[in-house]
């Protein structure tokens, strides 16, 4: 975790360091480049204006993430794009069950991933990862991204989203297992053939 920075030290270059993370988070949540860039711009403006409000109790990235979550909620409220959320959340409960048989073994045997380190050097692998992230429900994606992209702790995620720690673990487990299966199908199954 980045060390806490005092208000006096927050300037544009410090904020810019976090920009790729904020932008990626916003892109994956809003699915629109223009909207994501606007929202991140809003975050920077709010951060510069509110720098005194940053007491150094959390890392700068955690603080910016908190502002970002609010700005995304504002954007969604304005655009009224949450209509289909409820329907998608209903699917959540089933999806880990679907990966396992009743006796707790895998429905389809996890395959060996060939050259996993090579994948990390391939831009197309990251595109596949983004497609897989888009397959998660919005709530699962948000929790997973807060943990793995923004590096928030479970406690911080609970505070920001109001989801309980237990629920948070359930969501992260589901998201990770679905992403694992998705990457296997989208990337490693194909890569193994060549």
């Amino acid at each position: 975790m980045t060390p806490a920075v005092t208000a006096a030290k927050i300037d544009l270059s410090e904020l810019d360091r976090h920009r790729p993370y904020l932008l990626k988070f916003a892109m994956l949540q809003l699915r629109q480049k223009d909207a994501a860039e606007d929202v991140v711009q809003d975050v920077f403006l709010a951060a510069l204006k509110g720098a005194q409000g940053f007491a150094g109790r959390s890392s700068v990235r955690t603080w910016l993430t908190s502002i970002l979550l609010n700005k995304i909620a504002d954007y969604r409220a304005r655009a009224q794009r949450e209509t289909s959320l409820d329907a998608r959340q209903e699917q959540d409960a089933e999806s880990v069950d679907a990966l396992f048989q009743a006796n707790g073994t895998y429905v389809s045997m996890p395959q060996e991933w060939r050259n996993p380190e090579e994948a990390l050097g391939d831009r197309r692998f990251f595109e596949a990862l983004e497609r897989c992230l888009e397959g998660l429900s919005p709530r699962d994606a948000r929790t997973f991204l807060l943990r793995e992209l923004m590096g928030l702790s479970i406690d911080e995620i609970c505070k920001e989203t109001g989801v309980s720690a237990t629920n948070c673990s359930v969501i992260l487990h589901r998201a990770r297992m679905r992403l694992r299966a998705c990457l296997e199908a989208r990337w490693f199954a194909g890569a193994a053939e060549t």
Partner: protein
Amino acid sequence: MMPTCRQVSDLLSERLDRRLRPMERLRLRIHLAMCKACARVEGQLELLRKAMSELPKSRRDS
């Protein structure tokens, strides 16, 4: 009792978020030593974490 692959996948996920208790670590270790599927998943979840940490930088070299 021996944990199932499903329970082990839960522990593998939780291990990325908190320190497991000694008994959980023991159950995990015994299962992983005997189960190829879960040993694969263990490495794959670690790769997923690594990929996520590199995702924001992934387009810069394109």
